[in-house]
C-alpha cells in the first residue's frame, strides 16, 4: 500500500552563508533523482514556493534558495523520483550507546499515520503502542503533544498580551491554576496584529524568504519540537537525573521541514541557558517514515502491541485534546481558542461539553476558514476592554496552496493594514501536518492512459523507441 521513499544520508550543513541558508543549516533535504523523473510536472503543480525548475517534459530539479523543505513534491510524485535526507543511521548508533539517553519527541500527526507503514488502515490511532514500541527500542518519551500544550500557554498568552496592549492596557492580569499573575505588557503595543502561528517550519521559512515584512507578525513562540528539545535538556534532565550533555533529542515528525528547522543556528538555547557550548536543542529529526524504517530494522512492530494497556500518561506523556489536534488544520487555532476562552471568561472546560468544540475553526478540506468567536469576559476584563463580550476574529489557512493560492489574499490584506483578524494559523500542507511531507506515501494511482503515456516516455528515454 505505502511506498518506500528513497533516502540519502544526512549531510549538507553549509559552512557559511549560502544563498538563503545560514551557516550550520541543512541545505538540500529534498532532492529530485533525475534518473526517475519523467517530467510529468506534478511536483510543480503542488509546490507552494515555485521552487521546482523545469517545464512539462523536462527533467525537474529544485531551486534550493526558494525551497521551504515541505516535501509536498515528494508525497505526490507519481514516480517516486523525489528523495529525502535521512538520519536513521545516526539515531540507531545513539541508541546503541549506553551512556546516551535518547529522547523521542513524537509529533501529533505521527500517531494517526505510522500504523500505515505496518499494514494498518490510514488514520489508525497509535498512541500507547507507539510509546511502547519506542521504549522497547530504547527511547525515553517526550510527547510533542506535551510541548504543544507548552506552546499554547506561551503563544496564547502572547496573543492575549497583544490584544490587551492594543486595547490600551499596560498590564494584564492572568489567573492560572487559581493563582494570579500580572504581566507587564507595554512592549506588546509595538507588536502588530494579527498574530500568525509559528509552529510550521515550512511556513516560517516561507515568510523569511518571500514575505520578510511579515516577520513582526509571527508569534515569538518556538515550535513545539524546539520547545521540547530545549525543555528536555534543562527541566527534563533534572527529572530524569541525567546530564544534559548525555541527552540526545530526536524529533519524530510528519514533516521534512522539521529536519531543516532543527538545524537553525539559534536553536541552541538549552546550551546557552546551561552555559554549555556546542549543544543543540534537537539533535536529529526522523520523519514518520524514518521511524518506521528504524523500528523495522529493530524488528519492532507497534501494531502488535496493546494500545489501551500501554496508554498510561506520566511525565511528558501527558497531553490535552487541544494539543493532539495540532496535527490537523485548525487544531492550533482551536487549542489556542480553548485556552484563551478559559482565561478571558474564567470558565473551566467541561471535558465533553460541545461548548469546548470550536468547529468553526476546523480546516477539514476547505482552503481557508474564518470565524468570529464571542468570548464572555470575566468582570475585571469587562472594565479593561470596555465590553462584556470580546469578539475574537480568527482565520485558518489550510495549506499555503500551489504558488500560495490559499495564502496570498490573506497576507496581502495584512500587509495593506486591512486584515480584520486577531490570530491567523498557517499550515503549509493541505489538511495540516497529517498530510505532511514526512508521512507514509500512498502513490497516486495513474489512469491506464497515463500509464501508457509515461511508459512510452520511459521507453523513449531508454532508447527503445
Amino acid at each position, binding site marked *: 500500500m505505502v511506498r518506500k521513499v528513497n533516502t540519502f544520508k544526512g549531510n549538507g550543513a553549509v559552512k557559511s552563508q549560502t544563498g538563503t541558508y545560514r551557516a550550520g543549516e541543512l541545505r538540500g533535504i529534498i532532492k529530485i533523482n533525475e534518473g526517475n523523473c519523467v517530467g510529468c510536472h506534478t511536483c510543480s503543480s503542488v509546490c507552494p514556493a515555485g521552487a521546482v525548475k523545469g517545464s512539462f517534459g523536462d527533467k525537474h530539479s529544485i531551486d534550493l534558495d526558494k525551497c521551504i523543505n515541505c516535501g509536498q513534491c515528494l508525497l505526490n510524485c507519481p514516480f517516486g523520483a523525489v528523495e529525502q535526507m535521512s538520519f536513521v543511521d545516526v539515531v540507531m548508533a545513539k541508541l546503541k550507546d549506553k551512556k546516551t539517553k535518547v529522547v523521542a519527541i513524537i509529533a501529533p500527526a505521527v500517531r494517526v499515520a505510522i500504523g500505515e507503514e505496518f499494514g494498518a488502515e490510514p488514520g489508525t490511532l497509535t498512541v500507547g503502542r507507539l510509546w511502547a514500541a519506542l521504549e522497547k527500542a530504547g527511547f525515553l518519551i517526550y510527547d510533542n503533544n506535551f510541548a504543544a500544550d507548552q506552546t499554547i500557554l506561551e503563544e496564547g498568552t502572547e496573543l492575549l498580551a497583544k490584544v490587551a496592549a492594543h486595547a490600551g492596557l499596560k498590564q494584564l492580569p492572568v489567573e492560572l491554576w487559581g493563582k494570579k499573575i500580572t504581566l507587564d505588557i507595554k512592549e506588546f503595543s509595538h507588536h502588530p496584529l494579527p498574530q500568525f502561528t509559528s509552529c510550521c517550519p515550512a511556513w516560517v521559512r516561507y515568510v523569511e524568504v518571500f514575505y*520578510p515584512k511579515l516577520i513582526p507578525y509571527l508569534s515569538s513562540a518556538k515550535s513545539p519540537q524546539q520547545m521540547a528539545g530545549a525543555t528536555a535538556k534543562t527541566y527534563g534532565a533534572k527529572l530524569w537525573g541525567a546530564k544534559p550533555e548525555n541527552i540526545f533529542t530526536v524529533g519524530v515528525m510528519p514533516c521534512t521541514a522539521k529536519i531543516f528547522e532543527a538545524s537553525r543556528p539559534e536553536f541552541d538555547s538549552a546550551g546557552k541557558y546551561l552555559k554549555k557550548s556546542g549543544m543543540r536543542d534537537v539533535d536529529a529529526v526522523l520523519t514518520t517514515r524514518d521511524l518506521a524504517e528504524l523500528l523495522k530494522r529493530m524488528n519492532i512492530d507497534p501494531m502488535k502491541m496493546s494500545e489501551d494497556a500501554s496508554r498510561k500518561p506520566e511525565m511528558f506523556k501527558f497531553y490535552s485534546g487541544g*494539543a493532539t489536534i495540532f496535527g*490537523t488544520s485548525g487544531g492550533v487555532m482551536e487549542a489556542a481558542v480553548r485556552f484563551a476562552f478559559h482565561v478571558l471568561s474564567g470558565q473551566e472546560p467541561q471535558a465533553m461539553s460541545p461548548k469546548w468544540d470550536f468547529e468553526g475553526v476546523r480546516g477539514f478540506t476547505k482552503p481557508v476558514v474564518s470565524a468570529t468567536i464571542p468570548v464572555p469576559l470575566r468582570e475585571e476584563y469587562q472594565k479593561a476592554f470596555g465590553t462584556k463580550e470580546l469578539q475574537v476574529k480568527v482565520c485558518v489557512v489550510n495549506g499555503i496552496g500551489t504558488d500560495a493560492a490559499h495564502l496570498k489574499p490573506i497576507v496581502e490584506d495584512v500587509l495593506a493594514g486591512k486584515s480584520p483578524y486577531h490570530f491567523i494559523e498557517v499550515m503549509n500542507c*493541505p489538511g495540516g501536518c497529517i498530510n505532511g511531507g514526512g508521512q507514509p506515501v500512498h502513490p497516486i494511482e495513474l489512469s491506464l492512459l497515463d500509464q501508457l*503515456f509515461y511508459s512510452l516516455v520511459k521507453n523513449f528515454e531508454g532508447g527503445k523507441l
Partner: protein
Amino acid sequence: MKIRKLTRRSFLKLAGAGIISLSFTKPSFAGDTAEKNFFETKVGKERLKLIKARQSGQYKDDVISREKFKMAASHENPMIKRFYSEFAHHPLSEVSEALLHTHYKARV
C-alpha cells in the same frame, strides 16, 4: 545533450498531444497550477480520502483525551502545571523567553 533533451521534450509534447486527442483531456496531474483551491485540483482530490481518515484519527484522540483523561484545554494538563510551578514560573517569564521563544531572520 542539449539536442537530445529538446528532442525528448518535444516527443513528450507530441505524445501528450496524442493522448489529449484520445481522451480530450491533459495527462493527469500535468500543469494543474491554474486552479486556486488545492482540494479541487486533481492531486488534491486524490488526497481527500487519506486526509479525512487521518483527520478523524486526530479528532478521535481529542475525544479520548477529554473523555478518559479529562483534558480538553492545555492548562488542564497536570504536567504543564508542574512544569510552570517547578521550573518556568509562568508564561512569558524570563525562563520561558530564554527557552521557549525565538526570533526570525529575513533571507533576502
